[in-house]
């Protein structure tokens, strides 16, 4: 898994590629601690993510809860079919804002 970042003002885009699994999820979690406090909007682009496991879901949940706390918005962008299925299966499609 690789993560690249695009920042413009108070907007941040995280571009993730590869698999968000048990081995890689900690890397994404680390990004959470690096998020700027004044963040207004976060976009997580997972167009190139082929699958996401529950470890990845946990990260996304933590991101969402953090953003909700600081009053920002979060968008998950570019869901692969198998990723979407997992979101639907676990009810994450109702928690996350998927584009």
């Amino acid at each position, binding site marked *: 898994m690789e993560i690249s970042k695009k920042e413009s003002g108070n907007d941040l885009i995280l571009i993730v590629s590869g698999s968000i699994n048990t*081995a890689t999820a900690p890397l994404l979690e680390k990004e959470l601690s690096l998020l700027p406090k004044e963040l207004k909007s976060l976009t997580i682009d997972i167009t190139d993510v082929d699958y996401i*496991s529950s470890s990845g879901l946990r990260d996304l*949940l933590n991101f*969402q809860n953090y953003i909700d706390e600081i009053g920002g918005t979060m968008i998950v962008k570019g869901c692969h*079919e198998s990723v979407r299925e*997992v979101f639907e299966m676990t*009810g994450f499609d109702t*928690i996350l804002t998927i584009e």
Partner: protein
Amino acid sequence: MTTGQTVCLLIGTIAVISLLAFILSDTSKLAKVRGNNKIWVKAVFYGVIGGIFGIYATIGGVRVEELGAIITIRDVGPMMAGCLGGPISGLIAGAIAGIHRLFFNLPSVIGGSMTLTESFLSGTTIPCSISTFIIGLLSGLLFKPFSTKKHRGLWALGIGVVMEFFHLFIVFLYFWGTASAAEGWALVSKIIIPFMVTNGAGFGILIYLLDMARKHQDVQEKEKSVETELNVATNIQNNMLPTIFPTFPGRKEFSIDASMTPAKEIGGDFYDFFFVDDDHFAFLIADVSGKGVTAALFMVISKTILKNNILSDMPLAEAVSKSNLQLCDGNKSNMFVTAWVGVLEISTGKLTYVNAGHNPPLIKHGDKQFSYLKNLSGLVLAGSKKSKYRQFSTYLASGDRLFLYTDGVTEAMNIKNEQYNEKRLLDCISRQDISTSATDIIQIVKADVKEFTGEAEQSDDITIIALAMNGVSKNITVKAEIENFDQVSDFLEEELTKHNIPQKIKLKMSIVLDELFSNVAKYSNGEDFSLDVAFPRNRINLRIEYGGELFDATKLKDPDVTLAAKDRPVGGLGIFIVKKTMTSMTYHSENNKNVLTLYKDLEDETVQK
């Protein structure tokens, strides 16, 4: 002496003779002496017994006071000793009984009522003593010819009569010499008939009883040796059947176990299994008509012929047809054999089978219930040369089961003459779950049959084969630590690619593996994580085995997926995803390890979409 007293005496004497016959023939330690290799031990044995009997007869004899004679069967002792033990025995017995007779009046001498000489000279003391001794010797000379005679009882009767005639002739001579022929004749003529009759009859009865007893013993010994031979036959038969389990070490694709319990020493049931080649495994169960030696012999022939033909390169139905023809040849005793023969292609799980008049096996596919495989290919084997056989096929996937048995199971009877029957068998097997091994299921069914039949005697051979498909699996085993995840993940990916699994499902399997591995890594403290993957028809099988605390993960409560983000717990989703993704997930523990058996039906996907 009254007639009644004489009869009573006679009965008493015959009783003693019977006892003697019993002692001489008995099965206990005396028999060892009788059969002792040291000739002199045997000779002394017979001699002493004969002598003691002589003494007994002299004391117990009828004293004819006015004649100074004793009518006795004393001579039976030396005759027996001589005829059965040989010259030395005869001599010993004759000497003991004769000397005893000579000193028979000793109490009177000691009492002072007569002198020693008077006691010798009284009545028939001297001739009787001498003749008893000589009869012992003469009988000893008869030892050889007597031992080979057929009706020894009659011969003994004759010997007794002749010997007593001789005995009284000596008495007559004695009186003729010491007194007069007339006096001798007066005495002898009175006692010759009772002497000849009682001694002839006594010796005849003794030998007759003895021979009867020995014959009886011989029959018993023969029966014992037949039994021993049957035991040998049982062993040979058992050795003909594959008995080492697990039979094929290194073959993880399936496990098989079998059991045969004959009703008698040797049975007509048999089973067999062997590899035709690396990828084809043959197994069969059969029941020969009838029981006992005939059935056992036919079993040997049937087993050999079937194996030979199955091993030769021809379709299964043809192999069975050919076996039928060969078994029909020279089958004059009209035996027949029912057989169920299967050949499993391990790489594909394809099972080809022929059922020649045998009981329908029970089969279980996946999650479905056990059911009877009722297809019949043709008549029993060896029944008719015209019989035609066709083969059927089905597929056995990982987790599938096959249960074969003979009618000894379904027709086992209880004391009320009720049969165990197919329904009861089906019920018993259906109660078992997927974790029941082939070995266990056999024991369970046998116990259930036993419980049903109770006190009733087993009337037919009981034979069972259980086959469980594990699938063609590939395995990887690593320490359950996160840094090993990629290794396991790559392995699975490679296997899925090899079997042309669509990308979409591959990704799902990756998620499943991720969830399973991460959970195990979290809880099992770096113990082994072992993954088996198999690809039976239209299915992906995963079997994971791992150490740590035994815990049934399938029992975890599903998380509430409708909660809002802030109310969501962070854990508990993994196993839920696995459950949702796979068609089936079951848990059991094995050798103190956790085992999760999962499969994904590929058809599920096509139905959903």
